[in-house]
């Protein structure tokens, strides 16, 4: 019976992963073959990738996306680390309030966020009406809950309040203890949540399209424009994006492993 249920288990999980991976595998096939009219595709070609990699717009949209990722994630991390200091060291009762504030962006996704932001700031005529600035601001909001969750979990994992107390008793001021003792110990956890947040920014289309559009074309906007021109080329872009994001996700998983081990040990 044990063997039968193991067999059942294997089949079940293979089905689930097929369901999840099939779209991607088919896209991969599309991007590598020129025709697929029969059961099997034929006409293997790397032309789609050649075209893509020789397109300067592709590279600049990748570069823009990376800048967007880096700036918004770093900004959010800095603001949140300061906010968490306030919560841990000054007033623990604010934690509930902070949690509500950081959940709000779950409700402020995609279309809503972009409309709200444009409708407020675009007419002001100040530096705030700069579309690029708006986009950075929007992404900062978008990644907030993910990074907040990551920082919170890391702080709980090291029982940060006791560490802070231990450092204080040893003659270290509160803020200094936070910088020198707490932050070095949560860095790897924060890095993981940052990577996750990067993959969210990387995957965004709505904000980039609605707020910046042609002014600052990110990789998803680039993809969306190309998909109507050539399905083979679009497939190649999808494969590249997927590979990059999978790489990021893989790094996250690899980094998470030792953490789990330490908890058990």
């Amino acid at each position: 019976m044990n063997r039968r249920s193991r067999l059942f288990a294997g089949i079940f999980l293979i089905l689930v992963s097929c369901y999840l991976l099939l779209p991607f595998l088919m896209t991969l096939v599309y991007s590598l073959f020129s025709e697929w009219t029969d059961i099997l595709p034929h006409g293997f070609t790397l032309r789609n990738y050649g075209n893509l990699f020789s397109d300067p717009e592709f590279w600049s949209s990748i570069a823009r996306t990376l800048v967007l990722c880096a700036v918004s994630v770093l900004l959010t991390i800095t603001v949140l680390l300061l906010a968490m200091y306030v919560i841990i060291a000054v007033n623990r009762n604010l934690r509930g309030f902070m949690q509500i504030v950081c959940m709000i962006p779950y409700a402020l996704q995609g279309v809503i966020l972009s409309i709200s932001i444009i409708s407020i700031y675009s007419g002001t005529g100040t530096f705030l009406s700069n579309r690029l600035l708006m986009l950075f601001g929007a992404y900062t909001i978008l990644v907030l809950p993910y990074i907040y969750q990551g920082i919170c979990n890391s702080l709980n994992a090291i029982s940060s309040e006791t560490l802070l107390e231990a450092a204080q008793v040893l003659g270290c001021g509160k803020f200094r203890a936070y910088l020198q003792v707490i932050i070095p110990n949560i860095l790897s956890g924060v890095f993981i949540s940052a990577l996750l947040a990067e993959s969210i920014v990387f995957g965004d289309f709505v904000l980039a399209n609605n707020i910046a559009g042609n002014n600052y074309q990110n990789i998803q906007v680039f993809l969306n424009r190309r998909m109507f021109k050539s399905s083979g080329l679009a497939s190649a872009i999808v494969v590249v994006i997927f590979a990059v994001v999978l790489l990021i996700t893989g790094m996250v998983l690899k980094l998470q492993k030792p953490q789990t081990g330490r908890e058990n040990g």
Partner: protein
Amino acid sequence: MSYIEFRNVVKRFGDATVLDHLTFSVRQGDLVTLLGPSGCGKSTLLRCLAGLETVTEGKIFLDGTDITDLPSSSRNIGMVFQQYSLFPNMNVEQNIGFGLKMEKCPPDEIRGRVRDAVALVELEGKEKAYPASLSGGQQQRVALARAVVMRPKVLLLDEPLSAIDAKLRKSLQQRIREIHKELGLTTIFVTHDQDEAMVMSDMIQLFHAGRIEQAGTPISVYTAPVSVFAAGFMGSYNQIDGAVFSRLSGMQIPPEDMVAIRPETISLSREKTAQQGCCELSGTVLDSTPRGNVLRYRLQVEDTEFRVDVLFRSFHLFQAGERLWLTIPERDCLRILKGAETA
């Protein structure tokens, strides 16, 4: 003169009063244990002294100075926590040297003092190890070294051994006691384990519901409890109603008193001994259980059950059902007011 002094200290969390107008003092160089069941306020007292909690009312003095409003980092106090709380990203050396670095000690002096502290807790060879690779006992020794290397005015230990295995705990109790003697540091030790308090302390402060129930040397608190609570918490006293004991022994005990008798003060024998100043009762062995190096007999004397402890030696072995004489020295029959539990 007292080195640490609590004057009328009150601590409330919301509506709950955790420390209730507490006044007590500690002499320089003593190892004082705050003993009591969980939730009695002993850890809170320690945290108030360390500056990790603010007191609601009252004053705390250390070495003649009012430290009630000083921040934790300026009190010059060493503290060891129950959960080790080592810095995970620093190795043993860096953990121990952290406080000295904060004080801006010269690097050479740091190196020397850290080396001495490592030797004191017998962790030579582990200097470069990280906390995650150490056992619980080793981590707690690092935490101890990290506290004493600062040469604090007072060392606070907040149930430091309660997460550690029974065998290891006993050897660490011994080590802490030795380090205390070696350095002469004034030390306050918090525990809920009465055996641990007996082994470790110069003085015991027995806590009960935010107040001090009894204070004294381990031997005085153990041999002369002032209340039913103290007798119940400090040992496994036989507690017998005064009227019942009068009937059994022929001694004259007022019925409003309880009689408390430690099980190890009673001697067992097959023959009547007729010793001076003792009362003798006849009872039947119910059973015996080995507890460490002591055998505990339960005996039935008329309607009352007595517990008697004897050393685990071959000539002390009696069988269940045997009829024996219990010899109890009269000075070991302590009288305690029944109502004293609420004191």
